[in-house]
């Protein structure tokens, strides 16, 4: 039975690459409207989990439901509900920000008029007007991140997954981006965020899970992670050190 109050439900997800277990029987429930931080060291299984949700990887076992839609059996419908800004720049480096959004919007079946209205809005929102016709390879790290975010949002997904969205972004732009993400979340968008900047997680997220060696090792509200006056970073380090 599906829970309609959940944006994402992961049930006993396992992902193996040969003999290596990248994700080991994890379960997660993320309510609609949540700003969810997924933390963990490099290689812990964060990106693999995201890849299983979005269709880049095939789960070995378990089930993933996005807004009640199974990402394997009803993959076409499920994919319309998810937007991804990945950690690595998985783009045609000769395409411009405008083209990236145009192509992605087209792939999602958005009609031309609506698509171009959204492209104009996103270009403006991410301050990309001066760079809309510049090839991706010529953009700075921060501009690349903003173009990737625009691409992830072109189909107005219900669930937005941001894998290290502010890596390489300068402080001022990072704060601007935070304000935008907070605003989107306040308007009801469910966001999953992975980041190595734990102050970013602390500032933005209201629910947090830590994954290590492919397993969920801690899960709770931000307040639970900040008990006894600790920061999220302090709690995170304590948990990871205890694990290792």
């Amino acid at each position, binding site marked *: 039975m599906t829970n309609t109050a959940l944006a994402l439900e992961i049930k006993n997800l396992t992902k193996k*690459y040969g003999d290596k277990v990248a994700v080991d029987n994890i379960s997660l429930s993320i309510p609609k409207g949540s700003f969810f931080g997924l933390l963990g060291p490099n290689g812990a299984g964060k990106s693999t989990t995201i*890849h299983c949700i*979005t*269709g*880049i*990887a*095939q789960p070995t076992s378990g089930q993933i439901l996005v807004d009640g839609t199974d990402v394997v059996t009803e*993959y*076409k*419908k499920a*994919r*319309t509900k*998810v937007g*991804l800004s*990945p950690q*690595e720049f*998985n*783009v*045609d*480096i*000769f395409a411009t920000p405008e083209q990236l959004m*145009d*192509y*992605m919007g*087209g*792939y*999602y*079946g*958005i*009609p031309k008029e609506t698509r171009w209205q959204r492209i104009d809005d996103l270009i403006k929102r991410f301050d990309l007007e001066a760079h809309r016709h510049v090839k991706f390879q010529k953009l700075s790290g921060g501009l690349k991140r903003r173009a990737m975010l625009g691409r992830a949002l072109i189909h107005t997904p219900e669930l937005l997954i941001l894998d290290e969205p502010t890596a390489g972004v300068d402080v001022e732009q990072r704060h601007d981006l935070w304000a935008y993400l907070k605003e989107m979340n306040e308007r009801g968008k469910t966001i999953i965020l992975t980041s190595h900047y734990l102050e970013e997680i602390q500032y933005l997220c209201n629910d947090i899970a830590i994954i290590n060696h492919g397993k969920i090792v801690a899960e709770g509200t931000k307040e639970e992670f900040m008990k006894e006056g600790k920061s999220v970073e302090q709690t995170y380090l304590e948990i990871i050190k205890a694990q290792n």
Partner: protein
Amino acid sequence: MFNRIGLYTMLRREVQRTFRVVIQTLVAPVISAALYIFIFGSVIGTRIDDFAGVPYISFVFPGVLMLSIINASFSSASSALYFMRFTRGIEEILISPFSYLEMLLGFVGSAVSRALIVAFLILGVGVLFGAVSLVNPVMFVIYVAAVAAIFAMLGIIVALWAEGFEQLQVLNTFVITPLTYLGGIFYSITFLPPLAATLTRANPFFYFADAIRSSMIGYSEANSAIGAMVIFGLVASLALLVTYLFRIGWKIRS
């Protein structure tokens, strides 16, 4: 629901990519074809009697056209998909709402689109040299599209298999090019000794060239039923294979 706009976007993107590298994708094949037509039409052709009721260049032209279609289609599909794997741009397709059949149609349709643009330009050159006749335009378009689709799907398979840029050329160098030139594109199999003619009949490329030639000049050296079975059988079997490879995510979905 069928992702019509998504498919159109895949086609539009490949056509834009074709024009982004226009010298490599369009100018080069047209120049090559023009040279073939000039040599076989104006240099050698004038010294050879009409064959099958048409000038030698009209007999050879369908083969020249097929050669260009094969190259355009194969290189479009293999380079586009391999580049997407290399840059991980394939993830844009993987996370989008495409069924596996739609992925097949998108990649094949994109490559066929480029092949048709090349074919149209070469037909234009052929018209200038007086080398073109079209006795059955409908069958011509069907056979050109079918042959282009076959090589688009072979290009997809090679792009999925290849682990380096060099491997992209393996099939082209060791299989496609020899079988194309030995498939009777420049000569009639009646010129060959019996054993060579029999071997040529076992070469599927002979049926590709013959089908296009018969739709252009109305002359065929192959059993047309066998030819149709070879061509459409290959289209169907390769479509099943590529759809299966997309479904299991071979080399593209981890």
